[in-house]
């Protein structure tokens, strides 16, 4: 059943969604220290400032270490849980998976505060490592959601055929299962990476004195002089995440094509 007026509404809605992102590059290249219209002229000064900033470089480095580690750990934990959830049934499964998926519906501040209290209590020094611990926790549910789809789409008879042909459980997993769910694994890695790279609250609480990209941005937003540089940084981040997401989407679709399913939806 079609309601033709919806098309117009859809385009207006997309404009609302994209309004902030369209403004970003406009102000990143605007030759004025105040973020306001009318525009002053074209400049790449803010990108130059960004490249010269040593604290920012440190923050980027930290964030990359955190995002890379968190995405690998979260995806590994996700593979275990998704495999268990899709392939086996065992008593208490709902409760266990529910606990693992809980961060999805828990305000991040609660996760951050409770981890902080425990880590300080047992005398762990706050660092990049403690942020990784927190990020693995919040990335794992997303990884599981993606991997569940991948494992569900798997035709079980392929594995059974491998067993019948004399492969062991482990070699079957390596030769049959893993290649088939690989697209899911790659898109889970990319998704976890993107989530971790952008996560603020947990990093804010658990990073101690170490800057990460979001905590650095947050600290700079107070200084009007720094805003144009942050706009330039934002432009780079948006470009980077669009590239990452396009790759993730490509692998997700390839995964669906590989296992012979039909494309029914996007992320989440």
């Amino acid at each position, binding site marked *: *059943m*079609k*309601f033709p007026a919806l*098309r117009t*509404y*859809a385009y207006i*809605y997309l404009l*609302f*969604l*994209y*309004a*902030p*992102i369209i*403004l970003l590059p406009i102000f990143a290249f605007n030759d004025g220290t*105040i*973020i*306001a*219209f009318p525009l002053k002229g074209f400049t790449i000064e803010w990108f130059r400032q960004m490249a010269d900033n040593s604290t920012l470089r440190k923050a980027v480095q930290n964030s990359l270490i955190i995002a890379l580690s968190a995405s690998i750990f979260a995806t590994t*934990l996700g593979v*275990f*849980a998704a*495999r*268990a959830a899709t392939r*086996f049934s*065992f008593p208490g*499964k709902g409760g266990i998976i529910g*606990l693992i998926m*809980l961060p999805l519906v828990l*305000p*991040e*501040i*609660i*996760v951050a*505060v*409770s981890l902080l209290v*425990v880590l300080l209590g047992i005398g762990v020094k706050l660092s990049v490592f403690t942020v990784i611990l*927190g990020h*693995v*926790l919040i990335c*794992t549910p997303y990884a*599981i959601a993606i991997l569940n789809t991948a494992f569900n789409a798997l035709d079980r008879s392929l594995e059974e055929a491998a067993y019948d042909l004399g492969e062991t459980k482990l070699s079957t997993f390596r030769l049959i299962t893993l290649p088939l769910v690989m697209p899911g694994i790659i898109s889970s890695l990319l998704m976890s990476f993107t989530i971790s790279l*952008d996560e*603020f*609250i947990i990093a*804010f*609480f658990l990073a101690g004195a170490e800057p990460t990209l*979001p905590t650095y941005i*947050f600290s700079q*937003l107070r200084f009007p002089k720094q805003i144009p540089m942050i706009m330039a940084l*934002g432009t780079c*981040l*948006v470009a980077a*995440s*669009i590239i990452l*997401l396009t790759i993730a989407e490509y692998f997700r679709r390839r995964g669906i094509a590989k296992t012979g399913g039909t494309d*029914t*939806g*996007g*992320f*989440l």
Partner: protein
Amino acid sequence: MAKATRWRRFTRSEAFSGYALVSPTALYALLMLAAPLATIVAFSFFKDGYLTVIREFTLQNYVDTWADPVFRAILLRSLFVSGMVTLTTVLIAFPIAYYISFNVSREMKSRWLFLITIPFWTSYLIRVFLWKVILGYNGVINSGLDILGLIDQPLNMLNNVQAIVVTLAHAYAPFAILPIFVALEKIDRSLLEAGQDLGESRLMTFWRVTLPLAMPGVVAAVLIVFIPTIGDYVTPQLIGGGKVPMVANLIQARMLDLDNKPMGSAIAVSAMAIVTLVSLAFLLVNRRFLGVQK
């Protein structure tokens, strides 16, 4: 002997394989999530000594928290803001989900969903800050209206609840669209034809067939938006200018600025309890819509 065989049988069972596989992830969640949550619940019943926590049972933190008018005001504001955000987000998201599910051709659907999720994956902080740029004193809207000669004085649109609602409604849009879309996709299209064949108008078919069947998605969308927004820290800080703090800002202030961990824990636990209660109440009210399509 009998014990050993039973053990051997158990290790070969499907349940054992399941437990073995899920255990690394479950253990991580237990250590890093369940244990810390249990700890703040415990802390909320302890006394605060200066810089330390005295392990003595007390209800004083809760008494102080709930007697504090500031806490009550902030909690009420948080509930109100989250409620408004949820209402706005779900109301404006529903037509989009409907459009993608019913009006867009099969091949274009995933492209539309991709288009909608992209803004969500770009830096949250910068997105929130850009709303400050849009709504600010010499921001996009004010300078635009000024150029058009519609206003003499810039409008004051920041540092209030409405600005927070707009920003959060934007930030959580995909969270509302996706579950509603999934519910709409599941609807058997022949039911709609049946409705029209039986003489219902298009609007009545929507009201009596489509909407009730889409309700599980709407309920999921409401919860997925409501729960995280009530704990949002960044938006009240940046868009509210610190003038309209919400629960997360209060927890942060008690925990870090004042370093009163038992008090901060009591606030966090109270907030969690309220959120859980509101969510359960909402589920209860809508229970007749859930499980319709089984």
